[in-house]
């Protein structure tokens, strides 16, 4: 399946794009997405943290993804 991904902050600089698409096996979860991202963008490891949001809420590693989800990469926030 194709997962559509939004990028923000430094993660957008690392990805070089506002939107990514990644191919994952059907039924893949957030942990598998994280592993695929770390392979494609090794500099993610130097971030303080990287959280995944699914449909605008923080997701757990075992959250299962589907093609209709809005997935976002959330590097360390710095609002306020």
């Amino acid at each position, binding site marked *: 399946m194709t997962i559509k991904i939004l990028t923000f902050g*430094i993660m957008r600089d690392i990805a070089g794009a506002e939107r990514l698409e990644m191919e994952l096996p059907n039924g893949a979860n957030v942990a598998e997405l994280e592993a695929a991202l770390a392979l494609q963008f090794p500099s993610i490891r130097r971030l*303080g943290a990287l959280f995944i949001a699914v449909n605008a809420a923080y997701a757990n590693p075992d959250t299962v993804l589907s093609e209709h989800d809005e997935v976002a990469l959330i590097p360390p926030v710095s*609002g306020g």
Partner: protein
Amino acid sequence: MMDIQLHRETLSPEYCRQYVADPQAGAIVEFVGLVRQQTKGKTVLRLEFEAYEKMALSEMSRIAGQAIERYNAIKISIHHRIGVLQTGEIPVIVAVSAAHREAAFAACQYCIDTLKVTVPIWKKEVFEDGAVWVSAHP
């Protein structure tokens, strides 16, 4: 009751304070952030804030709801700026009303402390010699 907003234009502390005023309230505590001229000894030219807007609004609403429940706050207004900010401008306002001042202080501090940890908003500091995404690296 809560009032949660993201704005591209100047924020208004008056608006937020008036929103939270209430006949049952004996105290309002309002936090107003300001863009400082200097950070770690370097002169800041400007800040650039970006947000995952939909999720930022829902996270700020969740935080306000928790603060109302935990501290028995009456009304909360949280406004966050996005876009380019100059020195002296206001990136964020948190206004809270409660029956008594202890609850208003605690709820206001809870909201801004939590906002800084969980709300998907990112700040880029722009200096004469470059720019950095704040907190990106440990």
